[in-house]
């Protein structure tokens, strides 16, 4: 009886500790989604019947496919670059022991400060031939005018560059951190077996951080699919119209606030959200990244 009562008290106290977060979870994840689903079904001027018509409207919009293509091509450049550079540099960094790695690590973290609206500001000056420290290099390739660099054909590269530099450094440091947790005796054993530095890196270290790299790719892909600030600010302030409705989120913004079609805009947002959910469920149930975390709960 007493034991049962203390068990019940434990459940209640645990629940009370969890409650503030649960309230936020409901308020800022569940309720918005429910509201959005209902708004996405509402009748609009162009779709007087409401329902799934708004979803169909977005899919048939002439700006939808180009935006899908832009974002896909952007991811096609951004994701492999992230994977190769982050894996490569964290493995290289791991070969330097001790104090020499510290200044390099700090240097890699510096670009993390250049993000969002600051990224637009800084990369404008980095790429604009009148101001750029790289101007002599650009001149070598024949880029002397602003339009040689800032033109619609280069946008994918420009956004990939911005997002890559914001995130690469701190992922290098995080992956380097996970390399540090590989037990020394494992590496010693490999060396005794005659493996050289390259073999240790590729055959032992890389497979051991594989799941962290996959996790990084999923997070980076989820963020990349949602790209908004960079194309939006570049296009709405610096070079008017250069990247108009370039990404899916920009299209959603345009539909909602310039096209007064909140139904279609929300439908697009929700479709993107479903892609995110699938990605999330994939990581949680189809990779081993969270196994340890999930099993902890069973054990107790």
């Amino acid at each position, binding site marked *: 009886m007493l034991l049962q009562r203390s068990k019940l008290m434990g459940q209640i106290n645990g629940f009370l500790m969890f409650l503030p977060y649960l309230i936020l979870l409901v308020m800022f994840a569940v309720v918005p989604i429910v509201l959005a689903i209902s708004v996405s079904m509402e009748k609009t001027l162009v779709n007087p019947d409401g329902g799934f018509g708004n979803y169909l409207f977005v899919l048939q919009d002439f700006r939808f496919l180009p935006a899908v293509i832009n974002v896909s091509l952007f991811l096609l450049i951004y994701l492999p670059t992230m994977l190769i550079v982050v894996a490569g540099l964290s493995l290289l960094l791991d070969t330097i022991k001790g104090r020499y790695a510290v200044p390099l690590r700090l240097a890699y973290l510096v670009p993390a400060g250049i993000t969002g609206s600051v990224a637009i500001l800084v990369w404008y000056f980095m790429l604009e031939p009148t101001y750029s420290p790289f101007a002599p290099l650009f001149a070598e390739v024949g880029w002397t005018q602003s339009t040689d660099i800032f033109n619609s054909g280069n946008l994918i590269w420009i956004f990939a560059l911005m997002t890559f530099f914001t995130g690469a450094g701190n992922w290098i440091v995080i992956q380097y951190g996970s390399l540090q947790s590989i037990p020394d005796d494992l590496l010693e054993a490999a060396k005794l077996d005659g493996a050289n530095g390259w073999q240790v890196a590729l055959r032992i270290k890389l497979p051991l951080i594989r799941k962290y790299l996959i996790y990084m790719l999923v997070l980076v892909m989820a963020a990349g699919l949602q790209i*908004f600030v960079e194309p939006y600010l570049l296009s709405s302030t610096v070079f008017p119209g250069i990247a108009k409705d370039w990404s899916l989120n920009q299209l959603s913004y345009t539909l909602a606030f310039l096209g007064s079609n909140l139904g279609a805009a929300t439908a697009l947002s929700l479709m993107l959200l479903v892609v995110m959910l699938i990605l999330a469920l994939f990581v949680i149930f189809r990779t081993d990244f969270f196994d340890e975390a999930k099993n902890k709960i*069973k054990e107790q």
Partner: protein
Amino acid sequence: MTTAIKPRVYVRRKKVQLSAIPSRVVVWVIMVSFALFSVIPMTWLILAPSKNQVQLQQDNAMSFGSFQGYADAWNNLMLFQDGRVVTWLFNSVWYTSVQVTVACAVAVLAGYALAVTKMPFRKSMLITTLIAMIVPQVAFVLPLFIEITTLGLYDTAWAIILPGTFFPFGVFLSYIYFSTTIPLELYEAARIDGAGDWGVFMRVALPLSKGLIGMLAFFSFQMNWINFFLPYLVVNSGEVLTLPVGLGILFSSTPALNPQVGANVLPIRGPEIALAGLMVAIPILLVFLASARLLVRGVLSGSVKS
């Protein structure tokens, strides 16, 4: 300790010798050039406000103007809407302080509840949290906008602050911390000594979680300080905005980045806009450099090492 390591280093040095030297050089060249390339944009941003517009265009991009340059740029920036930039900075600071404080407190409690207590539905709550932390916040922006307008919070500080306190990644980090770093026996021992659930949390778990709280504060600061999309949508009045969104307004209403905005008579050009950008970037830079050790110690490795 040091004597134990030294002989090993000598052995390795002997082994490295001839064949490995060129590849060592290549490795260093790659790493140092990436480091230089990483540092150039921020260095430029720090140097830019020290120059005037003419120097910015004509002098070497990485040159220093004068300290007076910073003062001049600041004074010019203050001319924009009667010092609006200061309001934005002030807003950013207090919004972020509230967000970080609330987000950390909520996350520590919830992570502890998941890891240690017998609360019901722990498994499904953990999975929900994992989903919420993988889906980026941007994905919720339009649904949040609808909710905020429905609640009548549009154009208030709360529209920006409240959504930023939802921090599932923090709950996950805290869950991992309480279920792996602190041994379960420690909680049991306290319980046998007669401490209740809240007593164990306050007297055992909380005093041991300084490292965790540092990490949570770092991530929630980074997430909220730079947030652009949601604040941009839910707030319209200049006096409620944050610095990153204000920076976007400076882009569009001054000729700094877009000379076509010619009608503007304010002297807000390259150096001034760089100074405003620097005010957004420096706090993140400092927080990152100060937290480098936390990142290395393994945000991820903590999640799998038990």
